[in-house]
Structures are given as structure tokens and as C-alpha cells.
């Protein structure tokens, strides 16, 4: 085909020149002018073609919209590795699994701080203390709940491929969490369930002993291994969970997709063989949406699930299936309360398009092609003024949502290290304190986050029990003078290491080697340089970084932690010695270990909220303040920007998607899109003019020169 076009082009040029030869007979000068003007006319043709294509062009990235369906447009940067609710543990995975799967409990959409309410369950669990420190949680499932239609189910009586959800489906998923083959990242948490660990061990033993056992389907294996002692199903709709030790936080886990009902049929069917996708890429759930199209490279679509109980039984007025009726002043002002009592979901479809780079994404948002967006730091100053939106954005009808995210970013010291760690005793503590005093979080936030975020005083972010807004960490208020004194006290006057006579040299390990990422690390190392400490940045690949962590071969690093659920235990466990990286492979990468801290942690963990718990938390924070295994940096503040036609955006933190509550006004959207995207055409004409102005004198000069 290409060859054809080539010769076609060739022929056209030939035709032009045939004329030239004809004229040649009439006079030399004329013929010479004919030749180059062919080139000129050719260029003119190209120019005209550009103009025609320009007048037909548009920057609309979507095909024309279909009918009256309410479609929300969003974006993703890279597809999650897995959508299996037992292993998916990232924000981008949760933005799909959070609406495709439904859970026994849900968080109230409007109330802050977050509050649990029943979801698939009829009510909150009935908690009964048993003998021996054990506790039983009884959940009662709603009746007549259905899974989404899917090929993995047998045809039922009505000729549809679905099935009722029963308590055994949740029990099945809990057992999957224990399954060592699945390798759930939260197995540790659910080990609080009586018999959970024994079940995992039994499963493994059976598999090793009997190859035939390993070939059975997962649900058959679980049944044959005898199930988990602490998970019982007294009836079709009742589920009893027994914990062998106190762990009040377990209730939050029943609002996460780890405990969603999963049909065994889907696990047996979606194995990745015989042309069927893997379960990781084909969720089968009971949430308000189904994943109706999934192309990891370019886009996915979430469509309203007709089998969801909110759609099938609006008359139930189930709390998680209607728009909440209770809200605060801000909710009333923003018009959210007008939706009170409406059945969910309010939209029909969510189209999520792949967008790898943040700037094109934000620009498309500004052009009206995405409905909501974070505020990227690059555009912050034009979008935000003072506390609110800029006049320009207000004029476009945009709106802004702000929320402090339940997370903490910190710099950690490896406490097993010989220089900054505990073996260097008082001296290392003073170095850590001095380094903590040198890092100015407020300045960091100003430079890199446009001031979005709260400088952290302790691991606990606002909105988490135990956070006190008045608490000030003495080592987190920048003070270079005091820091220098501490360095002298530590034996490193002006940062000079007395043994070598040169600057104390430390290493900061990071796996973010992008230019922007390195700049952030340089901010810290510049700060420490003021104390005379030479901190080298060692940028490695993720693999090499993990390898270093495993081997304990690191000194300083930076991490962030986003809460799973709103409880202080979910932050302070990061410093519990039982979670130590080197000894137990846990998330405590500092390897911090303090007997008193551990004691307080174990006690605080099991306690209900109250003055005693507060006292324990306070003492733990004061230990951290003194010991400085962390330099707490900040808690992020999420700014989300949304178009005027999008209703009911209220961020919840904890990476919980809220598509079912959103609503849009498609007419307003298409009007605005049209108005915002008129192409600017005059430069094309200008370009053409410039081209002509370059060529014509050039041609003229040529002939002058030849004569």
C-alpha cells in the first residue's frame, strides 16, 4: 500500500513537469520560472490542506455522546496489578474494587469524623464478650441480595446467571485471606480470628501431603481443611466471627473489600486458562457498579449494577443505598442535602481513561473533558487564591473540596545502624534530634506542595483519635542554633567527625529517581548540610532499595503511610518492635524497639476510646518525641477540583470511592465544553503567510543570482 502511494506522488510531480517541458520550447526564461513555481504551488497545496484539516479539527477526546445516560469521566495513570479483593491494597485498585464489591459495613458519606453504618448487613455487629478474653461479632446479612450477573454462575430459574449472597460467601473470602497461596497482605490482622493461623497451617500441610488435594477447587480445599474455628454460620444469613484476643479495630475491616462476599464459582471459573481472564482482572461482586469494560492499557468502564440491592429494592431505604439524610451546615449550603433520601447510584456509567502524565490530564480537565481532578501543584497558583478558588476558576463554575488525608509522611532512621542507630547511644539520639530540628516541614510544603498539608508533630494526623491540635513537638520546630548545639553535644562539632576529621557522612536511600523526586530529597540534604552533615543521596531502583531494606543496609529513608481505618493503632503499630523490618519483615522500617513503647502499644491497642487510652497515647508520643526514630514531616491535604456540573463530591480519605453518590448535569457539561474549546485559528494563517514570504523572495533571489 505504501508503495502505491509513493508512485502516486511521483506521478503527480511528473505531471507538473510535463507542462514544463512543453513550455520550454517557447522560451528559456518562462520554463525556468515554471519549475520552481511548481514547488511553490505544491507548498501552497500543503498549506491549504493544513487549513482544511484545521477547520475540521477539534480537541474533543470522546466520540459523540450517546443518549440521555449520565456518564462521569475520570482517569487513571496505570492499571492496578490486581483487583482481587483479598490482595488489592492500593488506592488505584480500591477505586474499582470499592464500588464493584460491597461490604457488610460502610462509612457514612457525609459525617465527619467518619462513622460506620450497616451496608450489606442489616445492622452493626452484635458484640458479645466470651470467656477467656474472646469476643464474638455477629453479623446478620440482608436477605435477597444478588451477585452481579456473570458467566461464572449457572443459569438460575429466571434464565439469568446470578445467585443469592449468603454468609458462606463472606466466610469463603475470609478463608482466602488465610490461604498462604494467595498471600494476602492483611493476613496478619485477621490472625486475631480464632483458629485462623491453624487453618492456614492445616491447608499447607494438606497440600504438601496430598497432591490430589492441591488439585481441588479452592472452596473444596477449604472445606476439606475443616474451615476456621472462629468463623461460624448459624444460619444462611448469619455470620459469627470469634476473636481469640481483644481487637476492637476489627470492625473497620468489615468496611473494607477484604471482607466482601466472593462467590466460589468466580474463583473456580476465572483461572486465566482456556481464554478466560484471571480473577485479578475480572471481579465478580455485589457492589453498585460492575466493571463492564476493562482494557488495562487504555480505559475501563463501570456501569450501574442492576442487581445491586439499592437498585432492586429501593423500598428498603437501606442506609448505604440512599443518599444520607443527615449532614452538616456545609452540606446544606452546597446543595447536597437536596438529594437526601434519593436512591443510589445517581449516575449510569463511569468512563475511566488512561492518562499517564498529570499535566495533560489536568489540561483536559480544564477543557471540560474530565469531571473532577486533584489540583496539580503546577497550576496551583492560578487555581487557588487564599483559601478558595481563584476568580477565574469561580467564573468557570468550578468548585473546590478540601480534606486532610489520614496519612503521615516521615523520614526514618535505621535504629540498627551503627552511626544513627541505638548502638551509638546518647550521641546518635542527639544527632537524630539535631537533624529533626533542621528540617522545616512548613517550608517544604510551601515549596513542593503549595502549602497544602499540615506539618506533622507526631505520627497521628488530624481526625484520628488521640490527635491533639495543641500538641507541639519540641524537635519539630526548626531551630538551627539549637541543632548545632546538639551536634556539638553529640561530639560532632560543626558536623566534623572527630575520628576522621571530615564531615559526618550519611546516606539517604531513595527509590524515587525522577528529577522531581530527587529535588525533594535534596531539600532535606541541603537542610542537614547547614549542620555540617554531608548526606549523600543514593538513588536506586525499587528492587535494589527493597534489597537494602531487607539486608538492613541503610541509614535514612523517607516513607509515607496512609491509614486503613481511622484509629491510632493503625499508625503507632509502625513503630512497634514486633513489626520490625529486619527481624520480622514487618513495616517498621526503622527497627525502632522500646520496651515501654511496646508495653503501652499492646495495652492501647486492646482498649476502647477513653481517657486512659488518651493517656497511653500521650506517653507513647512523648517517647517518640525524645527518641526521634522518625522525623515526622506532614499530613497531606487533598484539594479536589470539580466542574460545576458535578454534584456531591465530598472526599472521605481512606481511598474510598464515592461514585454512587455523584450526580452530573450533562446539558451544562456539553454547553461548557463547546464554549471552552474553540480552536484558535489565526496562527495557521500566519504560518502560511510566513511560509510564502520566505519562499517568494528566495525564488526571486535565485533567479537574480543565476542571471
Amino acid at each position: 500500500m505504501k508503495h502505491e502511494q509513493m508512485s502516486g506522488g511521483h506521478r503527480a510531480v511528473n505531471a507538473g513537469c510535463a507542462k514544463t517541458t512543453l513550455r520550454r520550447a517557447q522560451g528559456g526564461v518562462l520554463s525556468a520560472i515554471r519549475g520552481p513555481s511548481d514547488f511553490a504551488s505544491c507548498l501552497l497545496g500543503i498549506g491549504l490542506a493544513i487549513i482544511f484539516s484545521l477547520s475540521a479539527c477539534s480537541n474533543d477526546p470522546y466520540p459523540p455522546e450517546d443518549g440521555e445516560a449520565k456518564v462521569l469521566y475520570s482517569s487513571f495513570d496505570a492499571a492496578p496489578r490486581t483487583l482481587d479483593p483479598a490482595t488489592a491494597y492500593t488506592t488505584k485498585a480500591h477505586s474499582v474494587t470499592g464500588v464493584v464489591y460491597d461490604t457488610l459495613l460502610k462509612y457514612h458519606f457525609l459525617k465527619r469524623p467518619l462513622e460506620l453504618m450497616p451496608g450489606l448487613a442489616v445492622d452493626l455487629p452484635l458484640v458479645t464478650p466470651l470467656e477467656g478474653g474472646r469476643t464474638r461479632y455477629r453479623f446478620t446479612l440482608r436477605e435477597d441480595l444478588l451477585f452481579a450477573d456473570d458467566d461464572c454462575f449457572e443459569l438460575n430459574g429466571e434464565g439469568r446467571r446470578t445467585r443469592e449472597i449468603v454468609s458462606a460467601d463472606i466466610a469463603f473470602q475470609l478463608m482466602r485471606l488465610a490461604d498462604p497461596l494467595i498471600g494476602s497482605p492483611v493476613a496478619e490482622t485477621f490472625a486475631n480470628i480464632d483458629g485462623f493461623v491453624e487453618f492456614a497451617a492445616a491447608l499447607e500441610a494438606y497440600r504438601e501431603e496430598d497432591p490430589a488435594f492441591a488439585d481441588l477447587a479452592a472452596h473444596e480445599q477449604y472445606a476439606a481443611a475443616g474451615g476456621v474455628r472462629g468463623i461460624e454460620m448459624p444460619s444462611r444469613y448469619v455470620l459469627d466471627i470469634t476473636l481469640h484476643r481483644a481487637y476492637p479495630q476489627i470492625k473497620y475491616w468489615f468496611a473494607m473489600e477484604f471482607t466482601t462476599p466472593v462467590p466460589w464459582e468466580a474463583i473456580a471459573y476465572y483461572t486465566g486458562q482456556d481464554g478466560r481472564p484471571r480473577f485479578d482482572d475480572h471481579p465478580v461482586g455485589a457492589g453498585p457498579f460492575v466493571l463492564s469494560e476493562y482494557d488495562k492499557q487504555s480505559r475501563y468502564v463501570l456501569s450501574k449494577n442492576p442487581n445491586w440491592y439499592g437498585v432492586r429494592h429501593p423500598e428498603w431505604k437501606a442506609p448505604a443505598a440512599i443518599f444520607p439524610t443527615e449532614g452538616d451546615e456545609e452540606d446544606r449550603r452546597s446543595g447536597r442535602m437536596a438529594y437526601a433520601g434519593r436512591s443510589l447510584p445517581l449516575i449510569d456509567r463511569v468512563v475511566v481513561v488512561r492518562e499517564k502524565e498529570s499535566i495533560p490530564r489536568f489540561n483536559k480537565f480544564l477543557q471540560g473533558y474530565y469531571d473532577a481532578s486533584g489540583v496539580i501543584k503546577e497550576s496551583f497558583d492560578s487555581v487557588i487564591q487564599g483559601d478558595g478558588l481563584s476568580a477565574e476558576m469561580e467564573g468557570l463554575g468550578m468548585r473546590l473540596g478540601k480534606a486532610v488525608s489520614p496519612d503521615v509522611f516521615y523520614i526514618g532512621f535505621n535504629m540498627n545502624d551503627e552511626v544513627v542507630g541505638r548502638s551509638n547511644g546518647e550521641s546518635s539520639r542527639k544527632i537524630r534530634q539535631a537533624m529533626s530540628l533542621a528540617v522545616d516541614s512548613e517550608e517544604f510544603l510551601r515549596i513542593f506542595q503549595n502549602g497544602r498539608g499540615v506539618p506533622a508533630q507526631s505520627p497521628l494526623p488530624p481526625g484520628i483519635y488521640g490527635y491533639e491540635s495543641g500538641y507541639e513537638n519540641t524537635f519539630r520546630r526548626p531551630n538551627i542554633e539549637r541543632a548545632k548545639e546538639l551536634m556539638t553535644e553529640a561530639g560532632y562539632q560543626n558536623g566534623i567527625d572527630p575520628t576522621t576529621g571530615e564531615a559526618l557522612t550519611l546516606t539517604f536511600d531513595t527509590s524515587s529517581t525522577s528529577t522531581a523526586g530527587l529535588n525533594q530529597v535534596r531539600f532535606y540534604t541541603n537542610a542537614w548540610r547547614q549542620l555540617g552533615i554531608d548526606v549523600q543521596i543514593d538513588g536506586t531502583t525499587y528492587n535494589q532499595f527493597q534489597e537494602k531494606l531487607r539486608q538492613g543496609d541503610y541509614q535514612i529513608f523517607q516513607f509515607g503511610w496512609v491509614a486503613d481505618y481511622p484509629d491510632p493503632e493503625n499508625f503507632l503499630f509502625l513503630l512497634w518492635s514486633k513489626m520490625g523490618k529486619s527481624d520480622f519483615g514487618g513495616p517498621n522500617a526503622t527497627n525502632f524497639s522500646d520496651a515501654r513503647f511496646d508495653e503501652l502499644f499492646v495495652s492501647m491497642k486492646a482498649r476502647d476510646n477513653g481517657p486512659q487510652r488518651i493517656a497511653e497515647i500521650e506517653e507513647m508520643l512523648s517517647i517518640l518525641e525524645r527518641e526521634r526514630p522518625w522525623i515526622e514531616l506532614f499530613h497531606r491535604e487533598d484539594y479536589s477540583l470539580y466542574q460545576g456540573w458535578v454534584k456531591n463530591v465530598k472526599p472521605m480519605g481512606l481511598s474510598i470511592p464515592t461514585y454512587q453518590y455523584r450526580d452530573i448535569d450533562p446539558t451544562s457539561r456539553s454547553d461548557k465544553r463547546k464554549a471552552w474549546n474553540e480552536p484558535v485559528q489565526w496562527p495557521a494563517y500566519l504560518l502560511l503567510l510566513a511560509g510564502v514570504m520566505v519562499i517568494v523572495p528566495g525564488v526571486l533571489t535565485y533567479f537574480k543570482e543565476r542571471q
Partner: protein
Amino acid sequence: MSWLEPHILSNLVTLGLLAGLVFAARVVRAQRLWREAAVELWRRRRFAILVVGVYLLIGLADSVSWTGGVPDDAVGVLPNAPLSVLDRAFLDSREASYSAPFAAVEFYGGDALRHPGGHPLGTDILGRDVFYLSLKGARVALLIGGLTSLIAIPLALLFGVCAGYFGGRFDDFVFFLISTMASMPSLLLLIALIMVMGRSTFSVCIALAVTGWVGFCRLTRAETLKLRELDYIQAARALGVSEAKIIFRHILPNLAHLIVITFVLMFSGLVLSEAVLSWLGIGVDGSWGQMIDGARDELSRQPVVWWNIAAAGSALFGLILAVNSVGDAVRDVLDPRTARES
């Protein structure tokens, strides 16, 4: 303080390179052919050669460093740290964050600067003087181009000349190796090499050299094959002159023009490749490529932070343009025949 401190090593290497340059200049002066070529080159591309010279001088100013002599009150300077001439010229030029060229206040926020009007190209996000960073990039670019060529060209010569001269099994092997390497997509091979070697200036140079030597090796091999058949070399062999002597006295001098041409033409390609690597997050610290990569986001800031990308982009562009145009002339002057290659 030992003699193997990195900065002393770097000073020694710089000294060695300077000596090499002086030696090369003497050789050029001594031989009529080369001298005439140099004169012709200077006549054709005076300006471009001067530009390259300026870049070299800047690189040189950043390569010679020593410790001490720093005032105690200089902010953010480590005691005992080696500083180059360039570092010393811009000592204590740091601000808090962005500022526009010649501005008196910070770009965002409007706080007063420590050196109002003192930054001809503004400052970057960390408050570093952009003029200083752009100048520092010259050394990195020269290092990438120079070090890589220093690895790749001898490697290619060794294999190419030996294969061409001795022929036989070794030639078969080299030819096979060249074909194999040449058939792998070079950018992918480059990335794969850096992925497995880890990320550092040296490994980037090695990877660039490994992917870059093939073409030149092919060229030297073909040229040596031709030279070997020439009468006077055949005669020398018949007279029993040793192989090493023939290679060093007769073959290599006849390849010299190819070496010069390849070096100049390869140089710009290498520096541009590094910019792509920087975008992939595996570039060299402090390169213009990294500055451009970082500035990508800044172009979307509002108001736009343009001076960073403008400075890095034009510094890169200036060097490449000058080298390319010198390269063109070098090729025309030294070897009109190969003008068609690449």
C-alpha cells in the same frame, strides 16, 4: 587526606586531558596535511569552534577543585568540601525557591531575595541559581560525550583493526558480534543495560559506549581491510616488519581522520541520548536533560516558570548545534567521501 580523594583524581584526569590536547595540537602543527585541515576548518567554522571552546573552558572551570578557603559564614557549604572554580564563583548564591531572572522578590509568595537582581537566569525550585546550574551542566555533557567516546572508540579500534588486519576466525567472530549488537534496538539495549547495571554516571557512559561502538567498529574494520591490501603495507609485510609496527605506523595513522570525524559526530548524539534517559529517570545527575525533564512540569505552572527550561534547552542546543556544525565541516574537510554516512 589521601591522594585518592575523588576531587584530586578528577584534577589529575583533567590535567591529563589537557596534556593530551596540547600533544594533539603539536601533532597537528607538525604535519602539513593536518595543519592545512585545521586552517581550513578554522576558516569555515570559526564561530562554532569558539563556542565549543567556551563550553570546554566552562567544563574545565568546574573540573578543577580544591578544599578550604571558604568563609565560615557561607550558607550550606560543608567544611572541607572540595569546591571547583565555578562553585567558588557562585558560593552563597542560594535562595529559598523560585525567582525570575533579575527579580528582587521570590516568584511565588513574593518574599524578598537574599541577592535581589543577582540571578541573571533566575533560580530553580530549590533556590539554586539557574545560571550556575546551566554552567555546571557543561561539565556533565562533556563528561558524557567524552568519557563514552574514550571507552567506545578504543574498543571499536581494537576490535575493528584486529579483525580487519588479521582476518580469519577472529574477524568472523567480530563480524558476528557486530551484527548481533547492531540488530538489537539501541535505545532498548541502552535501557536494559542501565536497568541491570544500576544508575550512575559511569554506568550510563558504559551503556552508551556499549551501544555506540558498533557502528565505528564496522567502519574501522572495513577501512582496515582496504588498507591491508595497499602496496606499501604489503611491501612492509614482505620485508618482515612486525605486525604491531605495521598497525601502529601505517594503519592507525590512516584511520586518524575517521576517528576524529566519528568522535565529533558521536558526541552530539550521546548528549541528546542522555536527555532521553533523564526523562526515563535513569540519566546523569546535574545534566541539562534532568533540568529539561524537571522543567516539563514547570511549563504548566501558572504563571509559567520558563527560565529553567529556556536556560537548559538553549545551553544544550548551543553545544549540540556548535558540535554538529563543526562536525559537518570536519567531515567535509577530512573526508569528503564518507559525507554520505549517517
